[in-house]
């Protein structure tokens, strides 16, 4: 998972000259919209010709469904519920994962002792524990948050350990020579040094948190956007189900985009320093 995410942004993302950018953007935008039109037209054709299952809603139906969704309060409530459960679980995962990871990473004996356990936790498909946790905690928000934490903790933990391990020996010597106190070392040296790795973990954890929160809602009675999708499907309101799915995607995409932006501004020094 790490290689894909820790790659430095390529030089290609740098903005070209302003005027050229504006011109190119217009034609690109037009082409993107055109592509969207083609995708939608293909969908419509597939529904009409019976290529897709008969219950699949047509493009106008879904469009109407989107409108129905945004104008209903239950949709916004559900979105809020999913968002708050995912966020709560995500924050707990981040705090716990960073703390444990930065504790484990620099201590060789602890690192070695925990490596198998951490590896197991990361590879373990946590969602499989859902029925058990459901038995223990019931279909409650705390069950949902527990599941989110159990799923999202691992990437943060693993990335934090990796980040803490790579503290430069030159910097480690410097810190010892100048007798930097433990707390200051943690805050001003270990944390920033591990940050490029930690943020990757935090970003992966955000996607996983949403995935887990929605998954729990799909499978249990816990309210939220996932539950709305299941209910719409059970009521045969396919237009609404697709609309909710679209918003779930939009939500996931927004979170990913926002985090990527926050990360790149937070880590300006890292991009520069590593050339």
């Amino acid at each position, binding site marked *: 998972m790490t290689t894909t995410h820790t790659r430095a942004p390529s030089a290609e993302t740098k903005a070209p000259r302003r005027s050229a950018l504006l011109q190119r953007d217009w034609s690109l935008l037009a082409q993107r919209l055109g592509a969207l039109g083609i995708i939608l037209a293909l969908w419509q054709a597939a529904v009409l010709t019976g290529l897709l299952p008969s219950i699949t809603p047509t493009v106008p139906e879904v469009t109407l469904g989107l409108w129905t969704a945004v104008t209903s309060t239950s949709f916004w409530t559900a979105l809020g519920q999913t968002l708050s459960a995912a966020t709560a679980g995500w924050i707990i995962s981040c705090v716990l994962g960073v703390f444990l990871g930065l504790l484990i990473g620099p201590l060789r004996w602890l690192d070695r002792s925990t490596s198998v356990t951490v590896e197991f936790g990361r590879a373990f498909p946590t969602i499989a524990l859902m029925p058990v946790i459901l038995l223990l905690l019931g279909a409650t928000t705390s069950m949902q948050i527990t599941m989110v934490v159990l799923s999202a903790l691992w990437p943060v933990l693993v990335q934090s350990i990796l980040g803490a391990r790579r503290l430069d020996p030159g*910097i480690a*010597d410097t810190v010892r*020579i*100048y007798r930097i106190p433990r707390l200051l070392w943690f805050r001003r040296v270990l944390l920033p040094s591990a940050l490029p790795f930690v943020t990757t973990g935090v970003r992966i954890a955000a996607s996983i948190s949403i995935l887990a929160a929605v998954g729990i809602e799909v499978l249990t009675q816990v309210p939220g956007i996932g539950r709305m999708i299941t209910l719409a499907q059970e009521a045969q309101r396919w237009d609404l189900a697709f609309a909710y799915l679209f918003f779930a995607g939009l939500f996931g995409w927004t979170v990913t985009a926002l985090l990527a932006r926050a990360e790149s501004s937070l880590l300006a020094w890292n991009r520069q320093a590593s050339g």
Partner: protein
Amino acid sequence: MTAPQSIHTGSLDVLGGEVLLDVSHVSMGYGDGEHEKRILEDLNLKVGHSEFVSIVGPSGVGKTTLLRGLSGLLPPKRGTVSVAGQTITGPHPDIAAVFQDYSRSLMPWMTTRENVAFPLQGQGVGRRERNRRAEESLEEVGLSGQGDKYPWEMSGGMQQRVAIARALAYHAKVLLMDEPFASVDAQTRFDLEDLVVNLREALGVTIVLVTHDVDEAIYLADRVIVIAEKPATVVDVIETGFGTVRDQVDTKADPRFQDARGRILTRLRKA
């Protein structure tokens, strides 16, 4: 002042005055017990206040190991290191260090000023005072007004100046330098050498510098300690007698410089 025209064989003791750094019967190595790899054997050296001592030896002889011992990063297997009469057991407030790899000892997430002030923050110095001292040290190394830059916005030579400024701001009595100019180009290297010479004169810090570069060792030092062999021991000590002022052209053309150079190179070739 009547400058002697020939070099002297120096002593491992100070010429006169107080001893600041006292290295006594120090042996160092890696590993324990029968697996131990002995690097340095029974090294003795006394360094006085404001003295500049170079330790020169071939690559891999154990110079970095020795400096890690002097700085308290790596405890000697036997013997003691003491500073101002106090035996050190680990990093000590009177000792600062500048390493060869400047790019790896500065923290890229801190500005230059923050890097220089960071050790002071660790000592609990207030923000204003530490910024003042950082600015002062940056000025001393010729980087006034560059405090807001990040290390990676600077050239290698400038980064090494920052590392020196950080050591100065710490107000340590002894400054240890491990091949500090090995990774910069020749001109920058001369500038940095002269900077260190001037700092020593202006601030009176005591400097112990290790290098594999014989010219550099002679040019900078009052006393040159030559170490060689395996495990390493002191094989020669030379008193340069240049005083506190140096000139890249004149000093290096001085017959004493040439004598010392020939003598050390011959000695190292034998080893």
